């Protein structure tokens, strides 16, 4: 070290180290813990508090805790510590509710598929090295714990290995989608269009009614296929295979139509017959013609020349009109036909022509030359899903509308399907699974609805704006619990006689409407934050309203509000606990129910149960908030102050 007394030429003095009091651990302590007398006092006070508290907490949670046991007696062996035996005994109930034990692989599969599809989407374009490092840091310790559990009990457990394999596959997918950007598109499409149906099918299973409604299955599958076609590249031409798919769908529908004696094509014949004796002949005749029109049009479509796009435009427009006419024609027919059959109107039949028209129209949606009608067809895309949903799951459970007797029409193949996926009615759902179902459905439903409401609120059409404002302010102004009460006691009054709604579905609708209003306000914030120049630039480019929104405004606005959206999701996730008050057994509800069990009456059991539930919710919410911070950093293309 340079001697302080040594003389140096000006400018030649070597750099001296910083004073020891301002560097290293001591410097840090001085700056951060003991910078002033008051700060020192606080530090000592809180350090003392921590030294007193932390060992107590650790003892409570780990060292003195009861880990195995089967009743309150075991818990009482250490009454001042957690009784994890309560949680481990009821573990499966906390996860699945009363879901039949033999069927629990179904929620597992749904969860695994969700993780597989969602995680790669969440981590777009992660650097490979970073991914490996992150995975090693996060998953390494978890794997160690899992392996411990795998070999801890008697014999080797299988589930830790399943989890390990799942997480490795997820990591592989994340890496793969960084290399193949197309994979991401497929995953998004899968998550949006296929996953909801798969999840619903697996969770709910097939009731006998659903199995017997096999024609609906055909329709539903066709609609799913149509939805999948939304993933096709925009430049697909009519001559492509998408057209062929469409033709195949049309043929499917025709088969379906002809296959059923009680179906609308045949009903038509009865209808015309009935007209002579009962109904007003003219109406029945009109209805019959209208109902037959789609067939005529589809045949004409297949034969139509496809050279000039203008001609195509008009033709597609005609198809839409025919579809709508056919829809109403069919309703008319059903009305006229009703007295003969003596049952309530089979509404599902009215869907058929609409689906028919949509099916025939779908390919035009993906053709650049299709123009406005094509875009309308594309805009109908959500309808495909609606139809698929209704068709697959509607009749037996959700809309208890007078359905036709499908028993006679069950084909042997579908009889064979019966029993493969036994029906699990929703009152049996519960635990974490139900919490996730409610939260995810709410999230998925509230985002698009919220965007539409936000756009409506910013619209310059006074009536649309007023409707949006009233809707948003109403739902934001009332507590969720009153919304759920309303869903429980008032929904049954809102619906026509005989129509009942599943309790879970009622809660889901309430939650979705409620959170969409909050989502709308978040999105509106983003829309308002976009500079006016952006709107004007989009207009100057000649973009239409929807194009300017889709291509210019929304991508920027949604990016700004990602933290707000995730915060709304977190709020929604926490709010799912309220469904417990209206009698559904979500995670908190089922823990609460477990605490009232006479077998587990011990003073430390409530603490244990609540801490377990709190920790479960905390993991999800904290994870989401960390993810939102990560996205904020990642999307932050501006400059930090």
């Amino acid at each position, binding site marked *: 070290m340079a001697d302080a007394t040594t003389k140096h030429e000006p400018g030649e003095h070597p750099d001296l180290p910083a004073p020891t009091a301002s560097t290293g651990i001591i410097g840090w302590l001085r*700056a*951060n*813990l003991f*910078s002033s007398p008051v*700060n020192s006092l*606080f*530090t000592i006070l*809180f*350090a003392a508090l921590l030294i007193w508290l932390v060992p107590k907490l650790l003892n409570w949670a780990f060292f003195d805790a009861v880990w195995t046991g089967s009743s309150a007696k075991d818990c009482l062996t250490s009454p001042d510590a957690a009784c994890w035996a309560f949680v481990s005994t009821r573990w499966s109930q906390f996860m699945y509710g009363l879901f039949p034990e033999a069927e629990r692989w179904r929620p597992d599969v749904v969860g695994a598929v969700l993780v597989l599809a969602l995680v790669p989407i969440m981590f777009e374009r992660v650097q490979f090295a970073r991914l490996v490092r992150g995975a090693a840091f996060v998953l390494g310790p978890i794997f160690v714990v899992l392996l411990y559990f795998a070999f801890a009990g008697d014999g080797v457990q299988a589930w830790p290995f399943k989890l390990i394999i799942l997480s490795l596959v997820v990591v592989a997918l994340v890496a793969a989608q960084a290399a193949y950007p197309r994979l991401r598109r497929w995953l998004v499409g899968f998550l949006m269009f296929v996953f909801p149906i798969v999840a619903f099918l697996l969770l709910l299973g097939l009731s006998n009614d659903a199995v017997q409604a096999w024609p609906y299955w055909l329709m539903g599958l066709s609609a799913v296929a149509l939805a999948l076609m939304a993933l096709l590249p925009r430049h697909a031409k009519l001559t492509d295979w998408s057209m062929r798919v469409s033709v195949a769908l049309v043929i499917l529908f025709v088969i379906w139509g002809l296959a059923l004696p009680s179906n609308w094509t045949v009903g038509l014949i009865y209808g015309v017959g009935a007209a002579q004796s009962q109904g007003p002949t003219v109406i029945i005749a009109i209805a019959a013609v209208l109902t037959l029109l789609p067939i005529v049009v589809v045949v004409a479509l297949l034969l139509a020349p496809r050279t000039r796009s203008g001609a195509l435009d008009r033709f597609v427009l005609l198809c839409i009109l025919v579809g709508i006419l056919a829809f109403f024609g069919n309703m008319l027919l059903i009305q006229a036909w009703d007295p003969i059959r003596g049952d309530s109107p089979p509404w599902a039949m009215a869907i058929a022509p609409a689906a028919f028209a949509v099916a025939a129209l779908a390919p035009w949606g993906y053709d650049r030359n299709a123009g406005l009608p094509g875009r309308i067809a594309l805009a109908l895309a959500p309808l495909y899903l609606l139809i698929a949903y209704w068709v697959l799951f509607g009749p037996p459970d959700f809309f208890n509308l007078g359905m036709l007797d499908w028993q006679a029409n069950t084909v042997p193949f579908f009889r064979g399907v019966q029993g493969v996926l036994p029906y699990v009615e929703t009152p049996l759902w519960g635990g974490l699974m139900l919490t996730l179902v409610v939260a995810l459905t709410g999230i998925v439903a509230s985002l698009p609805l919220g965007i539409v409401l936000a756009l409506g609120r910013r619209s*310059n*059409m*006074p*009536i*649309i704006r007023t*409707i949006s404002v009233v809707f948003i*302010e*109403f739902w*934001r*102004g*009332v*507590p*969720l*619990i*009153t919304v759920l*009460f*309303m869903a429980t*006691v*008032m929904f*049954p*009054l*809102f*619906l*026509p*006689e005989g129509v009942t709604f599943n309790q879970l579905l009622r809660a889901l609708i309430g939650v979705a409407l409620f959170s969409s209003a909050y989502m709308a306000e978040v999105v509106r914030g983003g829309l308002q934050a976009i500079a006016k120049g952006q709107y004007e630039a989009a207009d100057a480019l000649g973009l239409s309203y929807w194009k300017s929104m889709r291509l210019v405004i929304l991508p920027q606005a949604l990016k700004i509000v990602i933290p707000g959206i995730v915060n709304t999701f*977190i709020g929604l996730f*926490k*709010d*799912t*606990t*309220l469904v*417990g*008050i209206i009698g559904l057994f979500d995670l*908190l509800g089922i823990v*609460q129910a477990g*605490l009232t069990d006479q077998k587990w009456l011990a*003073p430390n059991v*409530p*603490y244990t149960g*609540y801490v377990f*539930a*709190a920790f479960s*919710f*905390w993991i999800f*919410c*904290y994870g989401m*908030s960390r993810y939102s911070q990560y996205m904020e950093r990642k999307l932050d293309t501006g400059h930090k*102050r």
Partner: protein
Amino acid sequence: MTAGSLAAKPASAVWYRDPFIRSIFFQVVALAGVIWVGWYLASNTIANMERQNIASGFGFLETTAGFGIIQKLIPYSETSSYGTALIVSLLNTILIAFVGIILATMLGFIIGVARLSNNWLVRRLATIYIETFRNIPLLLQIFFWYHAVLKPLPHPRDSLAIFDSFFLNNRGFYVPSLKSGWGTLSIVLVFIAGIIVTKLIGRWAKARQEKTGEQFPMFAVGLALIVGAPVLVWLILSFAVGYEVPKLEGFNFEGGVNIIPEFLAMLIALSVYTASFIAEIVRAGIQSVSHGQTEAAHALGLRARPTLKLVIIPQAMRVIIPPLTSQYLNLTKNSSLATAIAYPDLTSVFAGTVLNQTGQAVEIIAITMAIYLTISLLTSGYMNWYNARKALVER
């Protein structure tokens, strides 16, 4: 090309592409849709109510309720009407919201400032507090305080006693009360009078300062009037009339004031939960004032305290107030979770017990929602007014 041909409609424009016609069309369709949905729901409801013989109208509000309420701020008994029950439960909602807002604000400001402390330990602890409590559902926290902490407390006989005059047991928290009934009322009145007088003096002081430049010790005077005066009245009263200390009589306490465990659980959970949000708002508000402001204040020769009081806090409050108001609103709406532990608030008593007894779902849910909606709209109306008043006047 002439101006005339520019102004003329392009040949390709067809009527259905005219934005005006389109906007009319969409609005008519939207309106028709809303009206149709409204009509559909209303007609179904009316038909269903007729079929199920459900009474309609608001006559039930005059009917005798026939049930008791464990916490009441105005006289109420089983012979009172449903209308009185509505008011009692509404007052209970207002009470929990009011006390909760005060506690949450105090706690939230302390933790928000602690989050910005230059003491590492304090900062970390504040962060842990925030990240823990805002990520756990409120209902779970309410259950925790009620079922795990307050309900398993000992019976009145083995109460936890503080100075032999405060007692905590599974029936609630018993505190001494002033012997005369109007004592509490007079303290409240003095408190309100203090606020009004402070406001008036503040106006006068401001006018004087603008005229003469002399400052008035407003904070000290305000504190003396709003906090000091009620405390003084309380002290005088407690010497003059004395206290009634709760006493164990048989199985329960007599005398004093009983704060029921439901209220305590709601209060703790609501304020602890909301405080974690308020703390983040306070932190963001203070951080939103750029450091240049502090430097500018120092350059003007202001010391640390005036800098904080005259430069930082006024600007931070502009950012803090709007989200803070919406947190107050959230707290008020969240107080409806009381129904889960049967604290007799609006939702629990009116949309719960009264609904079950009368079966008039439509009217009762409508009244309940209307009350919450009114509170919300009044608050957001106030917030808009405040924003408009405090908004930066831009060039």
